[in-house]
């Protein structure tokens, strides 16, 4: 069955529905206009849009960027395109600025891209050609070894806890090394490698944030738990729900305004040391909130923000 015959009837039906609704809307709109009213310009329903703006780079003016991209591409075994383009990107979606080099095939399709921080540090490298689907995929240990080789070839050092998870999107594996500082996890910071089912590297990314100074005195876990308990009690009392505190650890976190505590959500701000508690609702709230995670400043006990799993 070709594409047109597969979707034709339903498209026609939707066009009819759309036309009917359009006519109905017009009729309602015309019918409701007062005789003396002047047409008004409709308010723009679109919110302010984030944008990606860029300035083109070329190999002559930015040799270091292209050289780094070539080295990374080759280290990870990515395919080589027939041409390359480079650009300095300001991405207000991700609130990030980076240099990007794209490898393009003869049709102009992207086969891989590499992004670097303005400092030259690798942000992400990802191949975008189609992945083969072998009859059997490599096992987790083989994927982990492939990831380790890729990281080393790209000139990166990794340490900290390693996690190997099956990836449903690629049918391959995600291998992550959590970043730690003096044994304390930095929340979300990691070196992340995705491995294709055939054992080749799909992508490599490194996320690393600046850390603030450690507080001179650190709350102990009992003090922190009391603060979390007080906060959770306020939150869940109103809905007649209860809760349990599942886990509490010290981590470096990005302060945020999740709970309206007035913390800035500036992605460039330094991470702070916090007690991080997972609060599991029970009762009515469990129908719509699976988990609430709370950050309590490890030094002064203030609420630094948190997160929610709806």
């Amino acid at each position, binding site marked *: 069955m070709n*594409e047109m015959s597969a979707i034709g*009837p*339903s*498209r*026609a039906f*939707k*066009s*009819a*529905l*759309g*036309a009917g609704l359009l006519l109905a809307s017009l009729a309602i709109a015309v019918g409701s206009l007062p005789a003396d009213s002047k047409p008004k310009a409709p308010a723009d*329903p*679109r*919110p*302010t*849009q*984030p944008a*990606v703006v860029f300035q083109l780079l070329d190999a002559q003016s930015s040799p270091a960027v292209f050289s780094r991209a070539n080295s990374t591409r080759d280290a990870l075994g990515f395919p080589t395109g027939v041409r390359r383009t480079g650009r300095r990107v300001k*991405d207000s*979606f*991700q609130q990030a600025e980076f240099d990007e080099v794209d490898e393009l095939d003869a*049709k*102009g*399709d*992207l086969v891989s891209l590499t992004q670097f921080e303005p400092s030259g540090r690798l942000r*992400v490298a990802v191949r975008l050609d*189609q992945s083969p689907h072998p009859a059997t995929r490599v096992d987790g240990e083989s994927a982990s070894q492939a990831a380790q080789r890729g990281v080393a070839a790209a000139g990166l050092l990794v340490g900290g806890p390693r996690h190997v*998870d099956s990836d*449903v*999107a*690629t049918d391959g594996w995600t291998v992550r090394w959590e970043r730690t500082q003096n044994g304390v996890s930095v929340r*979300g910071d*990691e070196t*992340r490698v*995705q491995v294709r089912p055939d054992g080749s590297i*799909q992508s*490599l*990314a*490194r*996320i690393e944030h600046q850390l603030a100074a450690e507080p001179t005195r650190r709350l102990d876990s009992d003090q922190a738990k009391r603060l979390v308990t007080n906060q959770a009690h306020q*939150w*869940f009392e*109103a*809905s007649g729900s209860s809760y349990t505190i599942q*886990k509490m650890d010290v981590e470096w976190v990005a302060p945020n305004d*999740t*709970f*309206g505590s007035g913390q800035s959500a500036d992605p460039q701000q330094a991470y702070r040391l916090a007690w991080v508690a*997972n609060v599991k609702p029970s009762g*009515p*709230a469990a*129908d*719509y*909130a699976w988990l*609430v*995670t709370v950050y309590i400043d490890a030094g002064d006990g203030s609420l630094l923000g948190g*997160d*929610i*799993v*709806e």
Partner: protein
Amino acid sequence: MKRAQLLLVSALIAASTLGSTAPGAFAAQGQVRSNSDGFAYRCLGYTDTYPQQLYTLAVSQMTKLGYAVTDASLGSAFTRSAFLTTVGKDYAVYVHSHGDNYWAASGYPNVDSGFLQDPGTTRCNSSSTDVVRSSSIKAATYGGAYTLVIMSTCSLGADSTTMPGAFQIEKTKLSPEKEFYLSYADHVYDSSMLRFEQAFWSYINSGNPNYTLWGAFTYANSIGGYPIPDAQDPFLPNWWGSSIYNGHPL
């Protein structure tokens, strides 16, 4: 029954009359819905602002991709009835809410996936009254084709989900049709959804017509930096559909 037949005949007459309309005469429509009252102060003890941020992002970016976002609601206008009565004419759908793979009416092991409608301003969500089930959506979509469906919820990207089928999207990654379904397989922090979707939209709407939705997904999945609730819940966005579709309306 007779009334249903009459409605069907009327619809077919309208379709045969208007089906010959020049292509592009009507912009492909999209809808964006986000449950915010279920995550407001009254229910959580604080106001979760992620539903607003994800909604704003989806409305602006689905529009930029070329869809006419004619049905968009944040909060109490996002009801089961509003969704089901408008979804039939859409090509693109975005929902942010609590999602899960609920047991079907026929019971275990059959699944009938769903998400929670907005509960309105006087009560909180309940899974016994607020679920919009995939079986209801399937009935409301009349077998129609959908090009882009994003379920910004937990669990509706899991292997067991029935939600893609509600939009006639097969759970394959080799679809020859221009269709793409995106969701998350397990429990996901809202901050991770926002980070992922920001990267997804930034890629697909960066102006290169050769970019694909699969490429946007792969890029967003690659950048990392996604905290996870616990080791049993790794960050697992998932997709089904075509790997070569650029997401623009047909």
